[in-house]
């Protein structure tokens, strides 16, 4: 069963249809890269799946269970949206770290708040909080920041901030981790460190969807590449199929424009 299945997602902004019926699915452990020119709807798709925008139509399934149904007339409660949201993690283009907290606090904040809802929170408070803390430290070490845990975001480079935000997203154990152009806000010499972290996650079978402009990186790290243009999926296949033997003219045009 697919860990994530997206069916016929449609999204309009006013009169403009940004997503015109997107379908795709992915398996556990798979890494999917979404490429396409600006305005093709890649980011909007990610935002719809993560419930930062509400899709107008379509369905989203996680492990076969429907977490969003555009046909349903019932209004979903904030609690339901939150529960659905927790299936996923999202790493933003602009990091969006919380400036008043240290790197470690950025990673532990959400898990600590969430732990308060556990039935055994009062009894095992200390163990639960210690475990969250340990887990966060391990995650920060994993992204190479073991010696910057006490630093505030303003004391970190862009690449370090983005690595903290990856650790922050991983702390909630998302079933699928989404990246929205994770290196676009970074200087070229800093993108390498982010790509290394993502590659490392891919090797550890973290299920990921990466919206990116780094075509060579997509080729190296992704199991599958989706090419989007004008709100539709034009290609969906292995890196070789999509990048070396594109079927669609628009894909060919997009890829050749990158080589100039």
């Amino acid at each position, binding site marked *: 069963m697919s860990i994530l299945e997206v069916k016929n997602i449609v999204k309009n902004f006013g009169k403009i249809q940004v997503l015109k019926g997107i379908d795709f699915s992915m398996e556990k452990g798979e890494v999917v890269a979404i490429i396409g020119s600006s305005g093709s709807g890649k980011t909007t798709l990610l935002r719809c799946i*993560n*419930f*930062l925008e509400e899709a107008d139509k379509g369905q989203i399934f996680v492990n076969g269970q429907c977490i969003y149904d555009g046909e349903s007339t019932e209004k979903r409660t*904030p609690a339901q949206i*939150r529960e659905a*949201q*927790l299936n*996923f*993690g*999202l790493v*933003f283009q*602009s990091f*969006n*770290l*919380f*400036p*008043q907290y240290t790197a470690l606090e950025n990673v532990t*904040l*959400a898990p600590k*708040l*969430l732990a308060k809802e556990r039935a055994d929170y009062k009894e095992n408070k200390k163990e639960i909080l210690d475990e969250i803390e340990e887990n966060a430290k391990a995650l920060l070490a994993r992204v190479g920041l073991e010696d910057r845990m006490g630093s*505030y*975001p*303003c004391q970190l480079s862009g690449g370090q901030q983005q690595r903290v*935000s990856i650790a*922050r*997203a991983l702390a*909630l154990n998302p079933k699928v981790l989404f990246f929205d152009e994770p290196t676009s806000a970074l200087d070229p010499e800093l993108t390498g460190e982010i790509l290394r972290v993502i590659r490392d996650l891919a090797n550890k079978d973290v299920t990921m969807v990466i919206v990116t402009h780094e075509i060579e990186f997509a080729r190296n790290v992704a199991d599958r590449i989706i090419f989007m243009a004008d709100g539709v999926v034009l290609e969906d296949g292995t890196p070789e199929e999509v990048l070396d033997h594109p079927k669609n003219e628009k894909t060919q045009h997009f890829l050749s424009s990158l080589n100039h």
Partner: protein
Amino acid sequence: MNFWNITLSLLEGLEKTCMIFALTLVLALPLGLIISFGSMSKFKPLSYLVKTFVWIIRGVPLMLQVIILFYVPGFILGYPILSRFSSVVAAFVINYACYFSEIYRGGIESISKGQYEAGQVLGMTKTQVFFKIILMQVVKRILAPMANEVITLVKDTALARVIMIVEIIQAAQNFAGYGLMWPLFYTSVFYLAFVGILTLLFSYFEKKLDYYKS
């Protein structure tokens, strides 16, 4: 009427000044936040209503509002419903809450959407996002304009004397009847000390929040 007697009477006046100041601050700070939520409400009728209210309160002189709150209920009902002191405090709280609400609104709206979204995708509730992420950043950003308002409040308390409350200026003016003008000027020493302490306090808060940049 030597220097010490006069200082003592002025200190009695200062006590009233301090009480109006403290009560206004304690009540108007949270009320302002509630009003700012009203003016930012997505429910248009509410936001228009609140914005109109803020316009009226900021538009009418505070001195008039003090007079209205004290005398008008009396005219209509035939008896006053608020004591002199509580009508002053009520007028000040409402007035300052409206000014604070606009400062809060400016601060809250200056926080980037990404901060809310980051909290949201981490499964935080709206309340958690506001209190754990947004509020502290807002406080840092609005500290300087808030200091301005709070300092203005210290001196606005002198308006209380329009309904015969003997705050420090009125206490000094009472001596003018005996031909003594200097107590009036002497009050500025107390104001300066008061504002000096507040200035130190605010710069302490600013330093406290200086550990991060947003």
